[in-house]
């Protein structure tokens, strides 16, 4: 008897109210899922019905038509260049905003909130939507793609930079301030050296993500391999589509490997 009370003291049995809450949560979740599935016309029947259709499409992609590779070199290199410059632009945008947004950099509250808001808006709007605007502004081609990536990734990187800066060791900062260094000098000689490896590693990772994104920017005319891909799909030339998809897979894999090696070298 006493053992039972002891056990109950260690692990209080769920009360009726707890159980009711859990049950209510499960019911609401199930109801939401059922309602959503209904709205999305998602049903086991639909899934089973559409599988043969998708299978037929997949079958039309084989064997890959390698003639699609002709003239694919330029868009592939463009894709890498878009990701490269996108990341560079992102750091240029992200670093000042990230510094201003970091809690421990003692920016005035208004400045901090403004930078945070700008970063939030930049990163909430997908690079594809940005690309639509930049294509409208500077015309078709890879350059608006790089700008779009840069603006969207600038928002993401800025937030990551700010978090990295908030986690720096405060002692070097205090030491520099004690010697009379001004704000800019403190940032240059106490903050940046501490966060630089992390910044480089973030940049390399987002360069990888950028290559993946740049493969679709071409869909809306912002350069890169996506344009060729969309064209083959629109022309129902699925055997060429699969050849281009294989090129994209190779590109992404190679970039991932190279960037992983570089990151390891830098962290070491």
């Amino acid at each position, binding site marked *: 008897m006493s053992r039972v009370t002891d056990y109950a003291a260690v692990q209080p049995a769920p009360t009726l109210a707890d159980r009711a809450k859990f049950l209510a949560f499960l019911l609401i979740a199930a109801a939401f899922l059922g309602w959503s599935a209904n709205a*999305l016309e998602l049903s086991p029947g639909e899934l089973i019905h559409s599988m043969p259709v998708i299978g037929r499409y997949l079958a039309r992609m084989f064997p890959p038509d390698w003639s699609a590779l002709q003239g694919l070199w330029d868009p592939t290199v463009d894709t890498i260049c878009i990701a490269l410059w996108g990341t560079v632009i992102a750091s240029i945008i992200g670093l000042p905003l990230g510094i201003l947004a970091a809690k421990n950099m003692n920016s005035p509250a208004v400045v901090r909130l403004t930078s945070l808001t700008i970063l939030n808006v930049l990163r909430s709007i997908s690079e594809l939507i940005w690309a639509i605007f930049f294509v*409208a502004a*500077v015309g078709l081609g*890879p*350059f608006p793609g*790089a700008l779009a990536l840069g603006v969207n990734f600038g928002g993401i990187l800025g937030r990551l930079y700010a978090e990295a800066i908030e986690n720096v060791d405060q002692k070097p900062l205090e030491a520099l301030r004690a010697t009379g260094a001004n704000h800019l000098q403190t940032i240059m000689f106490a903050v940046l050296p501490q966060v630089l490896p992390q910044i480089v590693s973030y940049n390399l990772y987002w360069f990888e993500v950028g290559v993946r994104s740049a493969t679709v920017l071409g869909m*809306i005319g912002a350069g890169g391999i996506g344009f060729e891909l969309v064209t083959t799909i629109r022309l129902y030339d699925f055997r060429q589509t699969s050849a281009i998809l294989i090129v994209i897979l190779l590109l992404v894999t190679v970039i991932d490997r190279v960037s992983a090696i570089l990151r390891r070298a830098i962290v070491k």
Partner: protein
Amino acid sequence: MTSLEATIGQALDREAAWRHRRIAVRTLITALCLFVLWLAAVRINFSFTSVVLGAPGMADVFGRMFPPDFSYISRLIAPTIETVQIAVWGTLLAVVASAPLCLLAARNTTPHPLVYSVVRVFLNLLRSINELIYALLLVSAVGLGPYPGVLAIALHATGMLAKFVAEEIEHVNRGPIEALQAAGAGRMQIILMGILPQVLPSVVGYILYRFDVSIRSATVLGLVGAGGLGFSLITTMKMFKYHETAASIFMIIVLILMADWISGRLQKKIL
């Protein structure tokens, strides 16, 4: 005395030479990086002038968008809910699909090394192709609407979740598993009692993170006709109703910031 001085002198010389070499290597790497960047800039026609020249065009687009037509938001509620639904079901299907796949893709639970390699390659393939490409292909296969969007997110999310969870499974503590084995537990029992409790918190974290990513993707899948807010955005834009486009963008920002906030809160609560 002289020999000591000589030794110190030699050490200093070596130090200086080493420093010079390091500076030379760094300069070389920097120069190489700048050269590559310059080549890339030429390639993508990077030009400040086109930004400056394009600025009025950009300002024109933004000018036509402002002020956003907030009365249009009442008609954006349905697409917003649809976006969330696409993300929820896409992520849920991915969770279901990745449950067996992550076990096959972890070194310590895979039935055979060959299965491990094949599943790993398959997961990498799934992950390397952008959701938008899946959506585009699926829209042309099964038609416009949210359904291809759900499948597109499910495919990409499966590659991502199964890989993350497989890596988590590979890093579990061996102790409880060996104890279970010693007690004569079967394969299924070891997975359920030994591995699952260990990886559950991080799995929930990954699912929340992925849900965040799915919401983001779901807002743009509409650009290729796969439902959600992106579809409102692109249709209003094509009809030159820029005030309504601005309202759609406003809704996207609100939705993403809300999803961010909620998943951040939940993550903090769980961990």
